[in-house]
């Protein structure tokens, strides 16, 4: 039990919350960076290696394309079907192998990214499938390479959907990052458990919840705004 009437209580709380918030933001940012890059790549591969996709037969081998697509589908499904808390625990040896420890602010990024990548990859896949085939065809008729079709047509045309998907993923990662607090992953979740739960301090719980709500709200607002601009709802981008 902490003494909430102690004059040092509130200054300590703000200092703790500030530090934990920075830890959470760091965790979420690095996780999202990895997720955006790898998830996008996996999502693109899921689409282009599918039957009728532009890479259904990489290196001239249809079997390779099929196999690659199948493996990616299985990995993505697996990653998405395992509950995060179990995934996090199961990954402890792997995390330790990569980071050196399984329990630190940085170490927590490993399970977070491994949970978020399949989640985002699936969203990318769905967003890319919405791009009309006619646009790809127009690109081909111009003589675009496969890489140009992906980088200049497929991804930009799915832009708003990708940004909204990334936003949804980021909100989930904020949630998950609170869970990693359970195994000493630092951040706001850690703080809520150590002070709010183990020492029964209601102010800590309330402040942590408020900060999390603010973070999630800001992420969502930024995502919506960006997607809206890309859709042309805002002023046209000047080049």
């Amino acid at each position: 039990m902490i003494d909430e009437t102690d004059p040092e209580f509130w200054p300590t709380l703000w200092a703790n919350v500030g530090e934990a918030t920075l830890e959470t933001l760091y965790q979420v940012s690095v996780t999202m960076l990895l997720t955006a890059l790898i998830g996008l790549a996996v999502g693109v591969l899921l689409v282009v290696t599918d039957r009728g996709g532009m890479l259904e037969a990489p290196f001239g081998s249809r079997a390779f394309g099929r196999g690659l697509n199948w493996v990616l589908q299985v990995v993505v499904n697996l990653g998405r079907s395992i509950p995060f808390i179990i995934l996090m625990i199961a990954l402890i040896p792997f995390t330790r192998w990569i980071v050196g420890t399984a329990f630190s602010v940085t170490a927590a990024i490993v399970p977070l990214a491994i949970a978020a990548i399949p989640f985002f990859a699936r969203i990318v896949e769905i967003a890319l499938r919405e791009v009309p085939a006619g646009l790809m065809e127009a690109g081909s008729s111009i003589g675009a390479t496969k890489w140009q079709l992906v980088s200049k047509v497929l991804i930009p045309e799915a832009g708003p959907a990708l940004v909204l998907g990334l936003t949804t993923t980021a909100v989930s990662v904020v949630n998950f990052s609170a869970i990693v607090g359970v195994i000493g992953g630092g951040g706001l979740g850690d703080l809520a458990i150590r002070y709010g739960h183990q020492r029964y301090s209601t102010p800590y719980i309330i402040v942590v919840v408020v900060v999390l709500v603010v973070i999630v709200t800001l992420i969502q607002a930024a995502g919506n705004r960006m997607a809206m601009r890309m859709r042309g709802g805002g002023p046209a981008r000047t080049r």
Partner: protein
Amino acid sequence: MIELAGVSKTFASRSGAVRALDDVSLTVERGQIYGVIGRSGAGKSTLIRTVNMLEAPDSGTITVDGVDMTSLGEEELRVARQRIGMVFQHFNLLNSRTVRGNVEFALEVYGVAKAERARRSAEILELVGLTEKADARIAELSGGQKQRVGIARALAGNPSVLLSDEATSALDPDTTEEILGLLRSLRDELGLTILLITHEMDVVKSLCDAAALMRDGRVVEHGLLTDLVMRPESELSDGLFPLGELPEGRDTTVIEITFVGLASQEPVITRLARTHELDVSLLGAAIETLGGKQTGRTRLELPGSPAAITAAVEDLRAQGLSVRVVREAS
């Protein structure tokens, strides 16, 4: 300029194989505007898509500007496609880019440097009359403006050939006329060879020099419009001169005479009356400008003895006129 020889293509579908192209041969001369018309499912889109190999044919050869398209590797094909512009019914523009951006997309693909891209795109937008809209987003444009962007993009590679798959089918009649006018002026100014697909006879009538009629994957009729109209049994020419139904309930002979150059029409009717003493009555007439020439078709009703009519028809044919006996009196 474009030559298809014995091109066939079969699609496998759930309801069995569909022969979308059945031994199609077709030649489009340099600078020609060539229309392909036919019902839905006739194979028109498949045909035009084989020209730039978006659809590889099962057999046959496709030559564009002297290049055998079917023999090209992936890389060579990309280069060849830069000289073949294509416009689409639903425009297929990048919504993520502005009008200028859509033209620059093509220029980027062609590896044009940045400063040159800006210059070229401005030049092309001027050509299609979209200078004012250069920085507009695609969503802000009307259908006609969108198709102008589609045409601008297709022109980015300085093509010698333009393919158009129902480019005006999603547009209203006035806008259609505008876009057709643009295509015509591009042919005249840039010497483009244009192969276009349409299901509207009016498009063929107002724009094309030559046309082909497709049915069930086959080209059933083709040629210069000015030649087609002189072929009495041509279905295409029936479409070009809609004279309506024949009058019912009268047992008379009806013939149709096609003229190129209207001056020749009057004397013919006079001649029939004078020389053959037939009491001709005019059932209908249509005049069209086809391939730049005023062309007309007259439908005449000829009462009289079968012998007199036969003589009259032979006389007209002997003068080099295209005469078709539409109905014979019993």
